[in-house]
């Protein structure tokens, strides 16, 4: 009985699975094969790890990897910190006001591309803030405005991700806070905990799993994301996704396996992070932790 029902489910899902399998898994396998040296278009027919080995000595790759790690970590840390602060301070308002919770969700619905374009219009040296500063006489020419996009420190990239990801972490954390904090705080109050102690020993530990797991997801996303670093980042060093894209679209087809090797490295690191997230979630479920967020 169970056997037949499984076959039936598989048959019903088959059309969708074939399309997804063909396009996604097929594409992935093709890319993997090309990164392993099998690329008939340029006459390479033997499997080799040389494109991966080349990355070990590729200085651009090293700098990009470091930059990707650094920017992803900084943007995630700032988003997580702000998300926690917002969640804790907005908790009472958000649970009472539907308007406040809707307001928090607006940035979530906005595509990254839009955030990137908005930031360029705002903080680039030809942007609104620069013109305003010039009009107010704060700077002599709009060009005097400090470079906040395509800059050395990736300020624009960090700002874009912080704007986009902070509400995500806030909402994830808020969901846990609204559900659990009240009762545990009452217990803590009767046990002699003052306001600071309640924050330190009750609220933060309660939201930590939700904050950490959502921060891990945010990190994994930023690590592999393309639009924002492409729009707001420098050309050199660029984040890994931009390097992979640039090499892939190069007129020199021999760079394509290298590009795919970079992309595969990105995917592996992102997968590792998702795996860590799953492990964390599983540990929390095993402990029957009511604060777990999946």
């Amino acid at each position, binding site marked *: 009985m169970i056997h037949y029902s499984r076959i039936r489910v598989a048959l019903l899902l088959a059309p969708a699975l074939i399309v997804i399998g063909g396009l996604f898994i097929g594409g992935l396998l093709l890319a993997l094969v090309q990164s392993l040296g099998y690329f008939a278009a340029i006459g390479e027919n033997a499997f080799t790890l040389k494109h991966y080995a080349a990355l070990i000595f590729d200085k651009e790759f090293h700098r990009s990897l470091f930059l990707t790690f650094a920017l992803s970590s900084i943007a995630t840390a700032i988003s997580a910190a702000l998300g926690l602060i917002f969640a804790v301070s907005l908790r009472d308002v958000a649970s009472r006001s539907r308007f406040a919770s809707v307001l928090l969700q607006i940035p979530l619905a906005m595509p990254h591309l839009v955030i990137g374009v908005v930031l360029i219009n705002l903080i680039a040296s030809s942007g609104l803030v620069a013109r305003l500063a010039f009009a107010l006489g704060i700077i002599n020419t709009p060009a005097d405005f400090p470079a906040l996009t395509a800059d050395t420190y990736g300020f624009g990239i960090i700002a874009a991700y912080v704007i986009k990801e902070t509400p995500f972490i806030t909402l994830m954390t808020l969901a846990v806070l609204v559900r659990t904090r009240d*009762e*545990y705080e*009452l*217990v*803590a*109050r*009767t*046990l*002699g*905990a*003052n306001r600071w*102690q309640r924050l330190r*020993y*009750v609220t933060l*530990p*309660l939201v*930590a799993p939700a904050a950490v797991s959502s921060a891990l997801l945010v990190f994994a996303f930023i690590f592999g994301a393309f639009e924002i670093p492409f729009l707001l980042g420098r050309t050199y060093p660029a984040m890994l996704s931009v390097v992979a894209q640039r090499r892939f679209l190069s007129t020199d087809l021999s760079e394509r396996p290298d590009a795919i090797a970079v992309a595969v490295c990105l995917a592996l690191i992102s997968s590792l992070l998702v795996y860590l997230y799953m492990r964390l979630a599983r540990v929390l479920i*095993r*402990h*029957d*932790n*009511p*604060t777990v967020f999946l």
Partner: protein
Amino acid sequence: MTALTLRLQNIAAAYGAQLVLEDVTLDVRAGELVALLGRSGCGKTTLLKIVAGLLPPTRGEVFFGQENFTHVPAARRGVGVVFQKPLLFPYLNVFDNIAFGLKMRGIAKSETRMRVAEALHAVQLEGYESRRAAELSGGQEQRIALARALVTRPRVLLLDEPFSALDASLRIEMRSLVSRLQRELHITTLFVTHDQHEAATLAARIAFLDDGRLLQTGAPRDLYLTPATPAVAHFFGWLVIEGKLCATQSVTDNGIRCDTALGRLTGTPRSPLANHKDESVWLAIHPAQVRIVTAPERSLTDDATENLLPATIEAVVDFGARVTYTVRLRSNDLLTIDLSRDAHHEARTTFDMDENICVSLPREAVLIFHK
């Protein structure tokens, strides 16, 4: 900490415009356990939260001993609370959960270790220090919650229906544990419950709260046998019906006759009644004092036959040592009569389903209240 008297004076509380407590005055003597009994939503937990400092009263004062604690924050009241749910911090193990209150008070680690060990011994869970809440049963969790409340040596212990989520056998076990610890530690305790049996088992004194008002305080037996109001009587299982003092009233042997939907009944006034004919009153019938007699034994038309009501056996539950009969009265009211096997022997009879019988109510089993 030395046991203190807990005194609540004219406490009132409201949620917005809705009054939930009205002029509640209650003393819990030093080292005494008082059960605060009442239906769900009657204001029990609100009163407990006021004592704990988790909710400010709109009026009235809370005294611990001679000291007024009305405006002292919860964190500085030195009150131990066990809630309906154990609410153990899920990210801490048993040791850290129990030690939480001590840590908040800055107690030294060596003393903390000693006091946590004592608390675990008191609740008979030695060796559970490193377990997490998820690894404990419901009863164990509630014991740890009790240990966590006791380890701080509170001035007053407040228990808010702590056993309601446990199964029957665990409840009995926990009651006995709480009772033993309360006596050993001589701690002033307020125990909130909606279960009259639990209240009577644990407390020498019950305070009955109904609709935000404290209706009666006394020994369980007093509340059960001489309820102060129809609401108390109803809660303790009395059948409460409306009636009117008889037009042809004559007071004999403290008995007062009333006309009711069940017929004419003679009862005992709970407090002195002005003898106005046709005055509406409440009558409360105590099932425990009701006797079942077979219908043909007496003539129902005989005026001399007092408080004999025709009824039908609706259900019989035979527990062996006792039998519970549910009888339907002429008014369609149901009365549950619990008879011990001895009572059967006395009556030398048993009764069957659907059998027409009569219930006999002694005057003492019918209390009459002002309306």
